[in-house]
């Protein structure tokens, strides 16, 4: 230890010279001031959602804040938590990151994790989280009653919160809806050079192909995906909106997208010459439109599990559902909840009833299949 002390001493004048030389004292001062500003409680309400008008409830029911890790982005969850706090007086703190990172983080934090709840998108990811052993069972009669079984985990580790449908979009100028029938059919000869798809690296396409594997078997699914690739008009795009852009300018005529992207474009462009088509609906054997969920699980090491369960149960309630799904133009998890008029205008469709817990099991196979089929 003694050898440390003299060695630190000369560093001080050294740093002083350094600072003087650069005349950065001003910078340091401003850095410290801005740090104080940034860290002062006044900037906390960004996530501490205690609202003023719920002060009475707060007094009546003092309770510890629930901590949420979420891969669903801030602007989609913030209003929902604000409503929860308003109605229950329970505060919610949250942080956002990519799902895979949050799961690793929870594993690393182990018993000391500050988090109570993980909200993420995609059944495969939820299944992976469950398999990694970070959840406890929900054990909620309310969830079991409100959420259809195929949108929940078989082992009760997570439940879906909102539905996203992945369906076909087509140009109303160049395609008649009668020409369309199913996902498989996009590989038919008539669509040669007319199909646009988003990259296979997006989880939405991975879970769609996982569904095809579950239904058709791996060999059949691979030939379907290969036939799509053969029909591509342009290389796979980086996002769903670009698929629609390409159809709009005539690079291709049909594509596969999540409905809420269509909803956003529809809001922006009146008289959009595009329409949604619900595939796999007509024949008895047809299985329906591929759906995926945003979902939630309570962490095994939550120190606030009772409150967390209250949040989860509240999230599947009617008032929360309208908001949770509504902010992103998704579908509520339960049919009884009214969807917003724009979403309703797209019509009803038969959902694919394949249990979403299967997604985790089949998604890696889907990724590999798409690699083999040359779907980039």
């Amino acid at each position, binding site marked *: 230890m003694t050898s440390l002390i003299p060695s630190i001493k000369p560093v001080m004048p050294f740093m002083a010279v350094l600072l003087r030389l*650069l005349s950065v004292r001003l910078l340091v001062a401003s850095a410290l001031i801005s740090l104080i500003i940034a860290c002062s409680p006044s900037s906390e309400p*960004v996530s501490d959602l205690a609202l003023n008008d719920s002060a009475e409830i707060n007094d009546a029911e003092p309770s510890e804040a629930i901590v949420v890790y979420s891969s669903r982005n*801030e602007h989609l969850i913030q209003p929902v938590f604000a409503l929860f706090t308003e109605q229950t007086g329970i505060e919610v703190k949250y942080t956002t990151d990519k799902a895979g990172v949050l799961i690793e983080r929870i594993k690393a*934090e182990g018993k000391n994790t500050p988090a109570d709840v993980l909200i993420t998108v995609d059944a495969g990811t939820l299944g992976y989280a469950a*398999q990694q052993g970070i959840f406890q069972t929900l054990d909620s009669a309310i969830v079991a009653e409100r959420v259809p079984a195929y949108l929940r985990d078989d082992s009760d580790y997570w439940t879906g919160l909102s539905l996203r449908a992945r369906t076909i979009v087509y140009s109303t100028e160049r395609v008649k809806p009668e020409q369309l029938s199913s996902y498989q059919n996009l590989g038919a000869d008539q669509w040669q050079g007319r199909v646009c798809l988003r990259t296979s690296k997006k989880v939405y396409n991975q879970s769609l192909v996982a569904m095809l594997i579950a239904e058709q078997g791996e060999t059949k699914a691979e030939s379907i995906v290969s036939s799509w690739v053969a029909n591509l008009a342009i290389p796979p795009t980086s996002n769903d909106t670009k698929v629609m852009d390409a159809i709009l300018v005539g690079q291709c005529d049909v594509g596969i997208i999540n409905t809420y992207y269509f909803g956003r474009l529809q809001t922006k462009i009146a008289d959009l010459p595009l329409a949604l088509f619900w595939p796999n609906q007509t024949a008895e054997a047809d299985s329906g439109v591929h759906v995926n969920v945003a979902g939630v699980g309570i962490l095994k090491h939550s120190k606030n599990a009772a409150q967390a369960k209250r949040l989860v149960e509240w999230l599947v309630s009617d008032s929360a559902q309208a908001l949770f799904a509504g902010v992103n133009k998704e579908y509520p998890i339960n049919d009884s909840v009214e969807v917003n008029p724009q979403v309703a205008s797209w019509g009803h469709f038969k959902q694919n009833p394949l249990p979403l817990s299967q997604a985790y099991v089949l998604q*890696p196979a889907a990724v590999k299949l798409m690699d083999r089929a040359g779907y980039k």
Partner: protein
Amino acid sequence: MLNLLNLGKQLRKIGVWQVFLVVMALPTLLALLGVLSSFLHPDIESLSHLAQYVLPQTIKNTIFLVVGVGVVTTTLGVSLAWLTAVCDFPLRKFFVWALILPMAIPGYVMAFALVGLFEYTGPVQHFLRETFGSSSAFPDIYSYGGVVMALSLALYPYTYLMVRNAFQTQGLRSLEVGQSLGLSIRESFWRICLPMARPWIVGGTLLVMMETLSDFGTVAIFNYDTLTSAIYKTWFGLYSLPAALQVASVLLIFVVVITLLERRSRASQRFSQTRSAKSVAGRIRLSGVDRWLALLVCVLVFSLAFVMPVMRLLYWAVPNMNADITSQFLGYVAGSTSLSLIAMLMIAGLALLMAFTARTYNSPFAKIVVRISTMGYALPGTVLAVGLFVPVAAIDNVLGAMGLSTPLLQGTMVVMLLAYSVRFMAVAFTPLESNLLRITPSIDAASRSLGVSGIKMLAKVHLPMVKGGLLTAMVLVFVDVMKELPITLMTRPFGFNTLAVRIFELSSEGLWERAALPALAIVLVGLIPAFILIRKSDAR
């Protein structure tokens, strides 16, 4: 064997400074060990699939990309640095600092803006179709050329800044030497100035290559698959973190190869320069056509790399501006700025100490340790973030088991800043290292003979000589921290947001119109250090 014995000898006389070096390298070493430890659980099934269908193409793509971006950024960086540091042409004073600005635009924002402009559905090709009936002659932006262009435009300022620093301090004097030897300016450039600036050029290229290796956001927009995309696909798609890390170790091999090449390129050379006195000769006054050519090159690069993307961002941001500039938004600006300032001071300071220490104890041991601590820049950010978070959480858990209230470390600024220093040590260290090469042993001897030695010598003699490098390092770190995402996401305290986080939240949902405002704010804040740097360095 001899080397090992030497190493042993070195280890025996470990002093405080060696301990300092090791401490600096330790977090990176932990992250690297985390990557390599994945081989304890090889995921044969995923790996054999990757080896057959994914790796051949991605490795090839990665090599092509790194080489392409390396060549383009070096060409751009060196020629622009030469023009602005040594020549004189209209608007030179403006371009000196304006050409740094593209650095403040995150790579994926640059890519999105360029793609938006030049793709088939974008305004440029739309205009061509309206005017000429077809845009088929227009090159496809979703191509190798497109990715190289986007990354090069975002990254050339690294080389530009580094090399400018070299030309600024020695370019004109080298030219004088050339003239005294009867060489023309052209000959002097190729035979004297360029070779003398080699450590800076190589350093800049190295930084660019490392950044290219770790990039995910930019290549994703082009759907151009590199090793980094393979890592994320394996992790998030195949749900195999071990296999993902094994792919990451392939990436590490790339880094080691690039680093070795760099070492070799300067192994047999010595660089020194007398203290840069004010040059006798003025800048080269370019003649007629050359003046306008120089101007044209600068205008072209600046418009492509800065004006066009920023116009695109403005086009998106302006309609929402009134609604989106809230006190919350100003909070993000304050958060980003303060974080970048603090990180800048800390990392530049640490890099300076490290560079001096490595120079003073110029041993193989010191060299290896320094190399390790600069490797964090080439790992994909998310891999590094997780690699750093795991040990931090483990320490917290141990402290918790010892009865301390936890978490002590997680969610504190300390962890955040340490993680930044692991990530950006290379950025701060490289410019300093090049400048230190210039300080010859004879300078040390002279200073000792005047009774100035030890720390005093470092402060009074060496520090002024690396001032330019230090300023470059500070600007680079400042802007890089502004743009940083994965570490910020993972280690930030609850409720603490930065501009980069905001861009991520909005753009990952496809809401580019609203992501444009925080992106513009990053550019605006990034302007400030660029401006200060140039005012300080160009004054001479």
